[in-house]
């Protein structure tokens, strides 16, 4: 059961002996994982309660409000699920890249590229196609847009070994600049010229606006759940997924095994970009109904990195984490209305995330107080 000690050197350094050892757990059981996560949540809400008390709010009231606004009615659930969809997709996009050890932080830009392409498809094809086909066209266009944007970083990475962290990060700003230009800086196809007020995007046709089923969830959520399943299966059951995992564990082993790394890197980037692009497409169809730069560039791609990390890069785990995250983020305005200062809301969100992310550490490692006799080394 006891796995090799990870951090002994640090505890031995200097004169002071720190009697704490961090050990990797050989295997953690499901119940154990659940327990650690629950403790983390209790801790998070406890810390949040202290903060709320200090700010003069009643924590119980605030938490009840938070719960009500996230899950308390079908309307509340709908808002939470609308926030969940893009986070599942960007979480999956990040997962795919990170599993191969490609540190792409470009989901934000790929989401924007997907929104631009998806909005274009909706505006061009929406009026002439029946609703299901129009929606499918938007999804495909958004996926292609996101994939194309990811390829811009993938090709230099695959051919010249360019650092993908830098290129994907920079491409986020380029994508944002292009989207802003299309609406604010030019009279583009996307911009609504008949609107005399603040520059706005053309509203997409009715056929491409997603209506919620039972007033709760829309087709975007179903699509994102299906994609989570497909990604999970692809990673586990396909040659592509197997090679990806091998390369993620050891690039050298992958090349010994004859895996074509150039093609692999580009294909993984493209899949990741397509997922983030679909997030942009569904966001336009379910929330903004137009290419609205200030509504689209709200860090969904960056939050996707947090979702993927907390979900331990497991595609199916991305779904519940995105759901929690969606609930957490989408209730922020409700708490402001309730009277909690926006600054406190942000700090509470941070505390909850930190505790949940920290819990993943305790799932993989355990901390033991070591008994060491004085003088022994």
């Amino acid at each position, binding site marked *: 059961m006891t796995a090799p000690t990870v951090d002994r050197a640090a505890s031995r350094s200097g004169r002071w002996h720190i009697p704490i050892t961090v050990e990797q757990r050989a295997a953690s059981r499901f119940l154990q994982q659940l327990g650690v996560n629950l403790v983390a949540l209790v801790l998070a809400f406890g810390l949040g309660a202290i903060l709320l008390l200090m700010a003069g709010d009643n924590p119980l009231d605030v938490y009840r409000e938070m719960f009500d606004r996230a899950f308390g009615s079908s309307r509340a659930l709908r808002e939470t699920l609308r926030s969940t969809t893009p986070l599942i997709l960007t979480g999956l996009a990040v997962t795919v890249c990170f599993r191969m050890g490609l540190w792409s932080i470009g989901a934000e830009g790929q989401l924007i590229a997907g929104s631009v392409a998806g909005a274009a498809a909706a505006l061009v094809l929406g009026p002439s196609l029946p609703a299901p086909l129009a929606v499918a066209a938007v999804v495909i266009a958004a996926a292609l847009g996101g994939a194309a944007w990811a390829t811009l970083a993938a090709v230099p990475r695959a051919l010249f070994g360019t650092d993908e962290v830098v290129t994907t990060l920079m491409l986020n700003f380029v994508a944002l600049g292009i989207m802003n230009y299309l609406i*604010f800086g030019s009279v583009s196809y996307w911009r609504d010229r008949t609107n005399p*007020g*603040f520059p706005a995007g053309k509203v997409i046709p009715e056929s491409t606006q997603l209506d919620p089923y039972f007033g709760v969830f829309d087709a975007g959520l179903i699509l994102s759940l299906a994609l989570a399943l497909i990604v999970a299966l692809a990673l586990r059951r396909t040659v592509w997924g197997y090679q990806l995992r091998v390369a993620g564990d050891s690039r050298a082993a992958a090349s010994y095994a004859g895996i074509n790394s150039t093609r692999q890197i580009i294909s993984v980037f493209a899949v990741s970009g397509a997922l983030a692009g679909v997030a942009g497409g569904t966001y336009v169809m379910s929330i*903004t109904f137009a290419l609205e730069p200030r*509504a*689209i560039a709200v860090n969904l791609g960056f939050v996707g990195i947090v979702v993927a990390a907390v979900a331990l890069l497991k595609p199916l785990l991305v779904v519940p984490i995105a759901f929690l995250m969606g609930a957490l983020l989408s209730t922020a305005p409700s708490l402001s209305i309730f009277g909690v200062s*926006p600054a406190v809301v942000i700090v509470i969100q941070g505390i909850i995330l930190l505790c949940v992310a920290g819990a993943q550490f305790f799932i993989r490692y355990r901390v033991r107080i070591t008994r060491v006799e004085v003088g022994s080394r």
Partner: protein
Amino acid sequence: MRRRTRTWLAVTSTMCLVMAACGDDEADAPAAPATTAAAPETETTAAAAPETTTTAAPEAPAEVTTTVPEAPTEVTDTLSASDGTGMRIAVLYDGTLDQGGWQGSMDAGTQLLVDSMPGAEVLRVEEIAPGQTAQRAMTDLAEDGYHLIIGTSTYDADMAIVSADYPETAFLHACDATVTDNMGQYCLAVEEARYVDGALAAALSETGKIGYVAAFGISFVLKPLNLFAAGARSVNPDAEVHVVFTNDWFDPNLELQAANALIDLGVDVLTYDLSSSAVPEVAAQRGAGFIGYGYDDARLQAPDSWLGGSLYNWGAAFVTTAQEVAAGTWEPGYIYGGYADGLLGYAEFGASVPAEAQDLVDSLIADIAAGDLDVFAGPIVDRDGNLVVPEGEALEFFDRAICCEWVIEGVQGEIG
């Protein structure tokens, strides 16, 4: 105050006429209160007298209680139009309340609403970004039974989406396009404000070069810029207005750099159309003067550099609308007005401003309010030499509201 009484009288008489014309359409409402002003179809024409939208007198003659037919709760709410008893109003802000400029002027408006309708519950909601956050906030507020939801930033698309789902709730949005059965717009004649500001800047600039830090190169921002330059050149025909765009509504760091760059260029008077205090800070550091933007918070931040500035009195529009909503007489439209309507005012001058410059500002405001000076009167020539408004003509209401795609002569700097 005298002006307010005058407009109040005008409104009262207009109201009587409107009521006489309406007959008993609103049998439910016992004697609609005289404090509210109807805004008859202002979205299509400006031909109506300047008094179409106006400061509603907060000191109501008598407390009139009316039943609001569109009360969202099952129990019929009893709202008081005069002091707002029973009324719930929410005001949404993009940033935090401690910002100045646009945001600060909006909050001064909310404060007027609080003071004028002491019985109403007025909620300020901060940090509401456009998009899903705004939709979420408005949905929650409508579900909670708020009677009036006021947006102070760019929520037009989101408000259009949410207001369609809550026909019983009144929605009011700042300076944009959508007007529906339960959503109206309010805006003020920034062109008048900026024209006066520009005139003061030119009167006080020794170099003839004035700096202008702006957000986006869009018509919404180009209009005040153009009219600022027009005002400046009405005083000094050779005045140059140098503009720098930050491409953000709130980026103090970039605003700081822009203001410094403008001073390096030889500018000695600065102005801006943003919410942060970056430009006043730079002006104070570098010994330049500056003109405020709609709100006089910066007068206290940098008193030695403060010259003057128009005040945006959004509160007039808020109070009018809230009272109409309470009375059940609200007709969503486009509230639009300037100095003549009490929607614009002027701040205290800085200590360094000579009496003749103060007189210039006062006389310009008097002329504009009296209708003797139309800031949009031709000839207006753009900086490419095209005649955009011919001599003897002036822009009509719709063109004023959506102005301007062009950039007036005298403006220097890259647009975008």
